[in-house]
C-alpha cells in the first residue's frame, strides 16, 4: 500500500479513530499491529505469513535472551541462531537469484531448482524488517534494556510477542524505514493520548514529506526516465549532466520524503521515529555524508557491523578494509545486483582514501569548503549511476556520452525540470545552512500552506518509492 493512495488515507483515518477511543485504549498496540498487517498484505496477502514467521523467530529469540537463557554460552548460541535465521531469510529471498545468475551457466539456470530460485519474488521491505529483527536480537543479547518501565508486563510471552510484532511491523516504517533499533522503540510502547500528539511536528513532517515525494520526486522521475539505455545516447552532455543531478535530487526527495512521512505518521500515534536524513548534500566529506544520509542504516551498520569488525581501533590498514567491507555489504543490502556492490565499494574506497589523506575531519575555510563540498556532491551524484543503471557497462556508456556525444540534442524539458524541481531540494538545504537568526521562521506556516497547495495541484504521476525495491 502506498502512502499516497486513497486506500491508505482510509486506513489511516479508521486506525487513528479507533486508536484514540478511550474505551479501546488497552488495544492500542493491537490496533496498530492489525493496521500494519493490513497495510503490508494489502496487495500480496501471502507476504503477511513471511512477516509473521520473521516476527515469531525474533520474538522467540528475544524472549529467550531476555528472560530464559542465563549462561554466556547459551546466550551466545541463541543470539547467533537468531541473527543467522534473519540473514538466512534475507539471503534466500533477496540473494538466491543473484547467486544463481552469477554462478550457474545461463543454459542451466532455467531448469530445476535453479529456475525456482531465479524466480523467487522479493518480499517488499524484507531488508528493513530483517534488520530490525537483528537489532532486537543483538540488543537483547547485549542486555540493553528494551522494555519501558512497565512492571514486567512483557514477561508474559503473548504480550512480548505482541510488542515485538508491533515493533517490527509498525506501518509507517515497515517498508522503507527509518530502521528503528529495538532499544529506541520498545521503551516508547506505552498508552498514548490524543492531547499528547505533537501536532506541529506531525503536520510539518507530513506536508514536507508528501511534497518531497509527490511534487519533487515524482516530477523528477518523469524527467530522469531518460537516464536509461539507449535514451541517454540521444542526449547532449549538458542534458546528461542535468540528468545526473536530477537523479541525485530525485533519490533524495523520494527517500527523505518517505522518511519524513513516516516520522509524521509516527507522531500521529505518539511515537518518535529517528531522523533519517540530515541535509546530506551539504556534506564536505564522505564520512560526513554518511552521518547525514540514511542515518538509520549507517548507524545500524556502524553499531552492528563496523564496530564488531574492530572499527578504527585495529590499525590503519584494517580500518580501511573494514570501511570497504562495510560499505560493500551496505551496497549489496540495497539491491541484489553487482552494480549495488560496486556502488558500495566505490563509497567504501572514497571513505578509505579520504581517511588516508586526512580529509575526513571536514576542514573549514572559504575556498576549501566550497571545493570539498563540490567534490563530495559530484562524486555522490556520479555514484548514483550505479544505482540507476543496471550494469557497469551502461555506466561506462553514459560516461562516454558525457565526454562527447556528437550531434546529440539537448532536451529542454529535462533541463527545465531538473532546474525547477531541483531548486526545491537546493532551497531545503540552503534553509539549513542559513544561520538560525536569519531563517524566516515566521513564514513557516505560509510556506507549508504553499507546499500543501503544490501537493494538491502539482503532483507528478504517482510512482513507487525507490527504496521499496530494497
Amino acid at each position, binding site marked *: 500500500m502506498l502512502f499516497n493512495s486513497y486506500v491508505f488515507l482510509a486506513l489511516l483515518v479508521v486506525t487513528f479513530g479507533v486508536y484514540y477511543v478511550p474505551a479501546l485504549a488497552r488495544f492500542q498496540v493491537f490496533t496498530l499491529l492489525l493496521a500494519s498487517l493490513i497495510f503490508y498484505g494489502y496487495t500480496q496477502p501471502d507476504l503477511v505469513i513471511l512477516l509473521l514467521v520473521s516476527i515469531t523467530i525474533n520474538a522467540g529469540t528475544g524472549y529467550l535472551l531476555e528472560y530464559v537463557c542465563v549462561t554466556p554460552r547459551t546466550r551466545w548460541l541463541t543470539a547467533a541462531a537468531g541473527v543467522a535465521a534473519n540473514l538466512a531469510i534475507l539471503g534466500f529471498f533477496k540473494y538466491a537469484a543473484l547467486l544463481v545468475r552469477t554462478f550457474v551457466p545461463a543454459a542451466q539456470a532455467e531448469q530445476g531448482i535453479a529456475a525456482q530460485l531465479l524466480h523467487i519474488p522479493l518480499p517488499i521491505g524484507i531488508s528493513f524488517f530483517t534488520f530490525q529483527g537483528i537489532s532486537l536480537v543483538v540488543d537483547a543479547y547485549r542486555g540493553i534494556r528494551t522494555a519501558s518501565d512497565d512492571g514486567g508486563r512483557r514477561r508474559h510471552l503473548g504480550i512480548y510477542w505482541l510488542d515485538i510484532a508491533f515493533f517490527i511491523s509498525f506501518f509507517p516504517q515497515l517498508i522503507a524505514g527509518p530502521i528503528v533499533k529495538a532499544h529506541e522503540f520498545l521503551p516508547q510502547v506505552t498508552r498514548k493520548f490524543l492531547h499528547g500528539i505533537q501536532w506541529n511536528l506531525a503536520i510539518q513532517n507530513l506536508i514536507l514529506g508528501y511534497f518531497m515525494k509527490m511534487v519533487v520526486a515524482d516530477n523528477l522521475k518523469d524527467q530522469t526516465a531518460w537516464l536509461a539505455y539507449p535514451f541517454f545516447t540521444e542526449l547532449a552532455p549538458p542534458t546528461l549532466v542535468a540528468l545526473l543531478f536530477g537523479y541525485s535530487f530525485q533519490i533524495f526527495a523520494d527517500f527523505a520524503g518517505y522518511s519524513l512521512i513516516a516520522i509524521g505518521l509516527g507522531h500521529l500515534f505518539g511515537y518518535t521515529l529517528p531522523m533519517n536524513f540530515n541535509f546530506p548534500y551539504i556534506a564536505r566529506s564522505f564520512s560526513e555524508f554518511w552521518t547525514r544520509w540514511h542515518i538509520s542504516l549507517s548507524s545500524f551498520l556502524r553499531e552492528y557491523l563496523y564496530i564488531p569488525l574492530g572499527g578504527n581501533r585495529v590499525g590503519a590498514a584494517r580500518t580501511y578494509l573494514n570501511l570497504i567491507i562495510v560499505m560493500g555489504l551496505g551496497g549489496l543490502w540495497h539491491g541484489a545486483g553487482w552494480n549495488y556492490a560496486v556502488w558500495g565499494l566505490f563509497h567504501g574506497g572514497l571513505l578509505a582514501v579520504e581517511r588516508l589523506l586526512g580529509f575526513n575531519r571536514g576542514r573549514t575555510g572559504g575556498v576549501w569548503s566550497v571545493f570539498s563540498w563540490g567534490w563530495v556532491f559530484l562524486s555522490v551524484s556520479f555514484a548514483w549511476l550505479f544505482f540507476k543503471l543496471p550494469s557497469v557497462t551502461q555506466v561506462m556508456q553514459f560516461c562516454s556520452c558525457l565526454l562527447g556525444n556528437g550531434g546529440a540534442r539537448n532536451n529542454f524539458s529535462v533541463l527545465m525540470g531538473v532546474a525547477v*524541481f531541483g531548486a526545491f531540494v537546493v532551497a531545503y538545504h540552503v534553509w539549513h545552512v542559513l544561520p538560525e537568526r536569519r531563517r524566516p521562521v515566521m513564514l513557516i506556516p*505560509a510556506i507549508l500552506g504553499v507546499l500543501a497547495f503544490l501537493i494538491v495541484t502539482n503532483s507528478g504521476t504517482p510512482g513507487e518509492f525507490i527504496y521499496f525495491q530494497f
Partner: protein
Amino acid sequence: MRFPLQVLLAFVATLGLWSVVVHWGEPNRELFGQNFLQRNVIRVEEYLRHRADAEVVLIGSSISERIDEASVGPRCVNLGLVKDHALTGARVIAAGHTKPRVLLVEMGLTNLEDGIGDELLAKVFAFDEVHLWSKWRLFEDRYQPSTVLFATLKSAAERARPPTAERDEEGFERWLRRTVELYAQRPDPSLAGDYARELRRVLSELRTAGVRVWLFAPPVDAAILATPRQQEVSQLFDSAFPPTEWPRLVVPGEYHTDDGVHLLRPEGKRFGAALRSALAARGVTQTD
C-alpha cells in the same frame, strides 16, 4: 492549534489565488507538457473536457501528432500521442461519452513494447479524476504551476529564436540513419498481432456506435518505405484491416520530415490541409 490553522489559511489563500489566475488569466494556452506523459494527458484532457463535440478525431503516435489539427478542420482534434500509438486514442474515444462522426486512424506499429498508454488511461479515467477533480479547471494538468512556468519559458525562448521552416540537412541525415536502423528491426510478431487484434476490436465497437473509421498512412521518407518494419505495417494492416472492409484515406504528395518519419511543423499544416481535401472529396465537411 494556532499553527495548523495558519497552515490551513495559507493553503486556502494560495488555492483561491491560483484559481483566479486560471479562470481569468488562462496561463497556458499551448498544449504543452513537462514530459511525454503529461503532454498526452493534457491533449486527452482537452479533448474530454472541452472538445468532446469534435466531428473529426485523428488518432496515432507522435508521427500523427505533427499533423496540424486546425488545418484538417475547425472541429478536428488530434489525439496523436507521443511515445504511444493509435490504440490508446481509440480507447479514450471508446470510454468518452460522445463520439466523433469521423475517426482517422494512423497505420503504424510504434511503441508496442514501451508505450505509456496504460499509465495515461489510468490517470485520465481514475475515479477521483472523473468524479472530483475534473469539475475544476484548476486541476487540469495544463494548469499545474510548474507546467505553466515551463510553457511560459518555452514560448519566450521560441519568441527569441523562432523555429525555422528550413530543415537542418546535416542533422536530418544523421537522424534519418538512426530511424532507418530502428526500422530495420521488425516488431515482435506476437505484440504486433495482439495490437492489431485489439485495435480492430475497439474500432469495430466504435463503428457499431456510428463512427466512420478511415485508416491512413502518414507520409514517410522514401528511405523508410523499404525498411522491414514499414513493410510489416503494410502487411499486418492489410491482413487485419482488409481495405474492402476498412476504407483507406490516401493522401498523395511528398512531405519533408526531420528524421524520416516525423513531419516538419509547416509540413504538418500542409498534410493536414491535404487530409481535409481528401475528407471533403468523400463528402465529409465540418461545421465551423
